[in-house]
């Protein structure tokens, strides 16, 4: 375990014994990264703040169940990602419930209006288009600087799965951003059309 991991274990023990300073130290150490993960996965600041709060509520309420066999941060970031997944699922359900009343899916203007007000950087739009699993891999490794092994532990998937998700996610990002060079297949299609 690293110094940080050892320190976190000691802080959790202190927190469980009622030391509120330990709570504050744990927050100081981890709140920014938890929020950053939430913001990258959920995209909106409001949702990210709520997910950050829910994450810490879960972690502190279940702190007595934390086993020091894995780093506290691994557990914390796993809870973070799972909380974000829950938010995405809820959001998807909400959208599905709302759509019939507020949007005519067949109306092409709906999409135009959406695109017209979307002023986010292209990379954020492209990131948002990834599946939650791909997005989590990219966020943890490429944005939060975790190693592939750490991401594997955090997401509880094999290392090979992380590698595959990472590779495919980056490729999809490049495609979305228009940075992808035409593949052989596309060149053949283009040639055929002309």
């Amino acid at each position, binding site marked *: 375990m690293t110094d940080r991991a050892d320190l976190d274990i000691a802080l959790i023990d202190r927190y469980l014994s009622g030391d*509120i300073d330990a*709570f*504050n130290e744990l*927050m100081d150490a981890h*709140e*920014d990264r938890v*929020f*950053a993960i939430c*913001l*990258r996965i959920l995209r909106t*600041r*409001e*949702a*990210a*703040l*709520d997910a*950050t*709060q829910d994450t*810490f*509520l879960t972690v*502190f*309420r279940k702190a007595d169940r934390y086993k020091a066999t894995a780093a506290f941060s691994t557990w914390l970031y796993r809870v973070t990602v799972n909380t974000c997944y829950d938010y995405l699922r809820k959001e998807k359900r909400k959208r599905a419930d709302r759509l019939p009343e507020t949007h005519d899916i067949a109306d092409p203007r709906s999409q135009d209006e959406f695109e017209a007000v979307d002023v986010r*950087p*292209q*990379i*954020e739009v*492209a*990131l948002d288009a990834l599946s939650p699993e791909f997005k989590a891999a*990219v966020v943890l*490794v*490429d*944005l939060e600087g975790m*190693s*592939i092994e750490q991401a594997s532990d955090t997401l509880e998937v094999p290392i*090979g799965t992380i*590698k*595959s998700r*990472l*590779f495919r*996610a*980056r*490729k999809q*990002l*490049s495609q979305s*951003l228009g*940075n*992808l*060079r035409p593949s052989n297949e596309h060149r053949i299609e283009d040639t055929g059309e002309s």
Partner: protein
Amino acid sequence: MNDADLDIILGITNGRLTGQQKQDALDLIAADPELSEELAIQVSAMDELGALEPAHMTSSEKLALRNSLVEQLHLEPVVPVARTSKQSRPWWQLALASAAALLVAIVVVPSMLSGSDNSSSDVVAIAPEATKTVETDVSRGDTDADTKTETTSAAAAAETATTSTFALPQITEDSVQEFFATAPAPIDTESTISADDQGAAGAEDVTDETTEPSASSLAESNEIPVDLVQIEECLTERALDIPDGEHTPMAATLDNGVTTIHFGVGSGSDIAYSVSIELETCTITSTAP
């Protein structure tokens, strides 16, 4: 793309290969156009991701988050509540400021006005049980879970993190006199008057008359959240203009977005005067015995 190719590319992009291993991998990739293209795609995406702005919480968002967690985890409330003023101050500074304002109101002002018609001795003499003061009310507003702003949603809490409020019973301008005539206990939210209590003669010196009856607002809410800091500042600013004694915020009026605080002046439940101060401008709108 097989697993070996994937390992080679990720080995380079994620720094898993170093030295000779890395050079060998680069040579291999250079000799294979497909691998070269895949590597370029990966690097391109990573460059785009690296250009994203860092994601940080603001200090007020952090404060709101911690306060909300402390509340929901039932931890000891040691995290200061943020406020409307330009900077955050811990609760003990608020209590200290309140005590200072109280000191000005009770000790300094009477001594400055000694010999005048508003001698403080008259006021103090009628209040043997006087214990509830602005100071006690302020501390209650700062810590009492029943009166402070709810912070169950982190995002919502972040928006309201800059307020330090407590609730006062809502009354109308027309019912101020009657309100004080009934002498409710200070800051007792149970003692709010009902809409039926309206209709009494208006306070004599009210300068900003209510143009709309407040029945509708009363129906919406029986309490008005008020800012402790503004109350303190107004009491301090108007210390020389208001009758001396203990100034207890007892009720509030909200009219066209303007909040007026109605103070009982006296001791405890023995109210000798009422003073109404418009909170936003610290203007005294009425004083009445």
